[in-house]
């Protein structure tokens, strides 16, 4: 069987095609997210909220096209969040808990992308597009952008808690319980970021050791874990309603997982 036929079969007929599609979208989304925010727009890691107005204007000038083009790509692709959140909601549907968990998570996280990412991108775009704008207004856009990005807390906090409770209650063994507790760490990062609305310097400011650096480490760890665990969930999925089967041993898995099922 040729490689092309194998790929075609995986795309068209694989029994788990929808799950794998959502999983790959999630992987690609997080890769792009990192590249766009850190390398293209260079708005992360964040500059200081304590900067003077001329420094803020200079910061925008140094990133003019990066911000306009990079956030253009963000506007183009941020709909990728939808299949990603759908997969997370599906993980809750596969658990022994009420379907309310999955739907609540789906709606909260779909909502979160607007204040947490798109509003930031809009404010940054407005800040970069007219370098001759009154500097005080550019600084207001700078505050608006970083505070909406860091300071959108509740949807992520309550969202992680919804997932956490579902995992701890679940009898189908969809996720290990330790991941539930990692969700608590993620929820706590959203809790401790609140002082970013108050402080302009120090560990609690939006670029501080707590509000940014520690939170970023927790977020990246949490995300990396759930990407791996969701992959396992898809491999283990039997489309039943009871306990999710264990991960099959390696050689068997690779066969059951892709082309083997075709014969």
């Amino acid at each position, binding site marked *: 069987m040729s490689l092309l036929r194998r790929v075609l079969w995986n795309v*068209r007929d694989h*029994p*788990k*095609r*929808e*799950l794998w*599609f*959502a999983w790959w979208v999630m992987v690609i989304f997080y890769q792009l997210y990192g590249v766009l925010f850190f390398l293209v727009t260079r708005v992360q890691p964040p500059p200081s909220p304590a900067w003077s107005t001329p420094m803020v204007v200079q910061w925008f000038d140094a990133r003019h*096209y990066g911000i*306009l*083009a990079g*956030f*253009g*790509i*963000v*506007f*183009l*692709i*941020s*709909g*990728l*969040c*939808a*299949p990603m*959140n*759908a*997969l997370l*909601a*599906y993980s809750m*549907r596969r658990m022994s808990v009420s379907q309310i968990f*999955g739907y609540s998570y*789906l*709606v909260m*996280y*779909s*909502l979160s*992308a*607007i204040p947490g990412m*798109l*509003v930031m*991108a*809009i*404010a940054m*775009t*407005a800040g*970069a*597009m*007219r370098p001759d*704008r*009154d500097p005080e*207004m550019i600084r207001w*856009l700078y505050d608006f952008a970083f505070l909406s990005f860091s300071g959108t807390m509740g949807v992520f906090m309550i969202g992680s808690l919804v997932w956490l409770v579902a995992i701890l209650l679940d009898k189908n063994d969809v996720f290990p319980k330790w991941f539930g507790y990692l969700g608590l760490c993620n929820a706590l990062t959203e809790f401790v970021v609140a002082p970013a609305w108050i402080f302009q310097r120090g560990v609690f400011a939006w670029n501080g050791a707590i509000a940014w650096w520690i939170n970023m480490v927790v977020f990246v760890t949490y995300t990396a874990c759930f990407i791996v665990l969701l992959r396992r969930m898809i491999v283990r999925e039997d*489309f039943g309603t009871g306990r999710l089967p264990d991960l099959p041993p390696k050689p068997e898995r690779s066969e059951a997982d892709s082309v083997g099922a075709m014969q």
Partner: protein
Amino acid sequence: MRRTDGELILFWTLPAIAIIWVSAFFIFPGFLHPMSPTMSADQVASFYRDETARIRYSMILFNWFGVGLIPTVMLLAMQVRRMAHRTPILSYSLIACAGGPPCLFLIANMFWLLGSFRPERAPELTQLLNDLAWITFTISVPYLIAQCLLLALAIYWDRQEQPVFKMWVAHFNLLVAVALAPAAFTALTFSGPLAWDGLLSFWVKNIAIAAWIVVMGVVLGQSILRRRAEERIAA
């Protein structure tokens, strides 16, 4: 006779919403000849001073009915659930997309209304509100693009004897997604087809949205009526 379940009522809100949107579009003075990003702060401020009433009335109308398309998107998500898929991933994804476009549109809508609330304020402030309104309005495509791509994928994967939608509907959705894409990059230039009053970012984008509403409205109506007729025969 079967009990009224309201599905058809929800469906027939679509043409009503479409008519209201088109009227509001024509009432807003900044759409038919879309405002240029090259306008100076003073020009923008005098536009808001001269056209205060029409800006307010059209945007209040949009504010009332901006979320009006959600029932239609939900009806589409329910059609996707009837497709030959093994998981509800794609209908979940459509539900996840449904709230995005009206939310973004309402943000733009508020900036326009704020601009017209005190048109005598400093022109630079009015220009800022106007920039935020136009940027938000023009880039409000991410969920619409995702919606079109997801619908297309759902239709391609719906391989059964009588698929819910025909294959051309999937191709049409891909085409709309492509037509919406350039608007995301509108802030890169103040003139030409990408600018927010340009051919691609304004006309192609908005005509694509209008065409999507009409075409998807018709195929959705057909699909709902066919299913209801089948259910009547079965009953």
